[in-house]
């Protein structure tokens, strides 16, 4: 009995070891490809929750499939919140689609992680050089992605409301200062007409947090990470200026200027008059203009000391490294680079066209057009989020710190902990070298 037991145990161990070995060998071989079966290519987009933009993607795909008979592109759309996780998991499963869109600040990480392959789109109608810098994704001097548009952040308000409360409507030449902005909010709050005069979309999730609020941090003089070598966040993210931002950000809630957590649709609340000033993306400019007409004020970001800032780089197109039909994928990428599609994007989603030529074809964005000022914001104020493979991690940590600050955490501690975690992550990953 004893002997046999031992034999069974030995057999089990051997079986487990064999399984592990087989698995190990197999994982060593790797190198499988995916994302296309023959000439049918899969394309992923984050736009499941945004039908206007999704329609443009569908149109490009339809045109492409109709323009030639060799390749066929198939679309799959995801909700934005889970898109990044899905891509990461698919990358680990070596099941990435051939074509996918990527949020600008994540390009470095996805290129570093080997999800993306460098692309070559020479010979397409629109040369890459014609694009706004923030709409092109490069890593280690290679081109990995390009976007058809960028977006711009701005404050939206009703001129009538600001005038009524004696608040100056700022211009790009003379944006609001911190004191002016705080005074304006105090006046609006005091009027009693608004529970929360300021709406900054604090009910949002994911990338919205660093996208919307880290430019304000940068305007204070702080930053997410020391951009000199991207090796440490301590001293920067928890530095004096960053903590000042944290204190200010928290004060918006403690003084009752802004909700700790916005409703499901902040723009709807603004248009319904529940808030007086909304910090929002250019994608809602058209809707706002339609509703408010001439009363709409598009206001530059507040200058908190280091000048007004907005985040640059939005969603861009890329090709996966495991794509089994790279020619087909590049064909699609090139095909999409026609001025008319740059224009379609801008019109459908009221985002900023990535090229000047497209901008001249969109009435609103022509010089003197009603949204021309948004293009200028993008050109003058855009700051890229840190171009480092550590960015997705930095983003989650900043999001948590900012949420904790609004919930009442001590800003110095919250930012300090985030900085410490980021440094640990950098250390664990050897500063993402290799």
């Amino acid at each position: 009995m004893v002997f046999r037991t031992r034999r069974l145990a030995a057999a089990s161990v051997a079986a487990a070891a064999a399984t592990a070995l087989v698995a190990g060998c197999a994982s060593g071989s790797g190198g499988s490809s995916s994302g296309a079966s023959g000439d049918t290519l899969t394309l992923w987009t984050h736009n499941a929750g945004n039908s206007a933009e999704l329609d443009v993607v569908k149109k490009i795909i339809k045109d492409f499939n109709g323009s030639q008979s060799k390749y066929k592109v198939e679309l799959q759309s995801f909700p934005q919140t889970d898109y990044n996780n899905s891509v990461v998991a698919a990358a680990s499963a070596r099941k990435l689609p051939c074509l996918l869109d990527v949020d600008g600040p994540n390009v470095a990480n996805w290129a570093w992680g080997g999800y993306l392959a460098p692309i070559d789109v020479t010979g397409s109608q629109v040369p890459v050089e014609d694009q706004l810098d923030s709409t092109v994704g490069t890593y280690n001097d290679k081109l990995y992605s390009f976007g058809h548009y960028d977006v711009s952040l701005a404050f939206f308000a009703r001129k009538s409301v600001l005038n009524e409360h004696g608040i100056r409507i700022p211009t790009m030449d003379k944006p609001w200062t911190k004191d002016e902005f705080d005074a304006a909010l105090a006046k609006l709050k005091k009027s009693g007409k608004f529970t929360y005069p300021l709406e900054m979309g604090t009910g949002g999730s994911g990338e919205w947090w660093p996208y919307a609020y880290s430019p304000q941090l940068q305007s204070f003089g702080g930053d997410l990470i020391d951009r000199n070598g991207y090796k440490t966040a301590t001293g920067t993210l928890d530095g004096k200026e960053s903590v000042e931002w944290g204190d200010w950000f928290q004060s918006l809630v403690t003084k009752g200027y802004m909700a700790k957590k916005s409703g499901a649709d902040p723009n709807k609340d603004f248009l319904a008059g529940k808030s007086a000033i909304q910090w929002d993306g250019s994608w809602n400019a058209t809707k706002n203009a339609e509703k408010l007409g001439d009363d709409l004020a598009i206001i530059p970001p507040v200058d908190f000391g280091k000048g007004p800032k907005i985040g640059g780089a939005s969603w861009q197109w890329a090709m996966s490294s495991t794509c089994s039909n790279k020619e087909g994928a590049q064909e699609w990428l090139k095909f999409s680079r026609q001025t008319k599609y740059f224009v379609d994007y801008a019109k459908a989603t009221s985002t900023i066209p990535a090229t000047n030529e497209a901008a001249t074809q969109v009435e609103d964005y022509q010089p003197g057009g009603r949204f021309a000022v948004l293009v200028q914001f993008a050109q003058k104020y855009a700051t890229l989020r840190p171009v480092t493979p550590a960015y997705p991690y930095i983003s989650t940590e900043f999001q948590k710190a900012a949420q904790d600050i609004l919930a009442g955490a001590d800003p110095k501690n919250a930012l300090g902990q985030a900085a410490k975690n980021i440094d640990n992550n950098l250390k664990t990953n050897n500063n993402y070298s290799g």
Partner: protein
Amino acid sequence: MTTKTAAPQRLRPVRRTRTNNARRRESLTALGMATPAVVLLIVFLVVPVALAFALAFTDARLISPTPARFVGLRNFTQLFTDPVFYKSLRNTIYFAVVVVPLQAGLALVLALLVNAKVRGINFFRTVYFLPVVTSMVVVSLLWTFLYRQDGLVNNIISTLTLGHFQGPDWLGDPATAMPAIILMSVWQGVGFHMIIWLAGLQTIPAELYEAAELDGATTWQRFRHVTWPGLRSTRTFVLVTITIAAFSLFTQIRVMTQGGPLDSTTTVVFQAVRTGYDQQQTAYAAAISLIFFVLVLTVSLVQRFLTREKD
């Protein structure tokens, strides 16, 4: 708790007459029958548990251009200096310490209520059990709505107090978020343990109650001296299952609060998923899993030891 049926003695001579050959065949067949389950358990349970131990000492990521390296105790030193980890640990224990007695006690009350032989009692059993067959994801979404500042719960509170009391933003306030989740979790799970208690109650012989009645025992005395001792083995089971389920708190957190506000609802499993899946730090999550494993194992063993001692 185990009901063992001893093999009748008279089978022995029969067995002895069987040839070695038949016995070897029996062995082989048995091995063949057990193999699928054993292999699956090894691959999907034993190996991953072993991996939790192995990966915790490396810098493995779910995906990385560089291969995993051995890094010693680094994940653990990082973990033990992470305040969020301690909060997760504290919240998990807080949840378990409140939920275990609350759910077990309430389930027993329910079981006593539906143990009566009255008409329509089955209806009540069914209703109390409905949340159990409802998925926790659905329950969490539903209650996220009920717990809103302007939600149903606050409307009911306001109606019942004739407008004198306004409920808080349950999930948005660090002071109320965890209690709100506890309440909901008990609501969802209590029916399960009601049935377990009920089964236990029904194993207590009716004669004992009749005897107690003849002795003129009060309701409380009957419960104290007949019911409670009769539920001893059921008690252990209820205790152990609620405890393990409570320690594994995740779905509610993921759907409702994401660990917030101010880490007031973050738990060990939630933290493992956040670091291991959302932030792709497989090795760090393995370290958390390992500590969680040790924690659950210790608690179960202690519980088993305590209940065994009384036997």
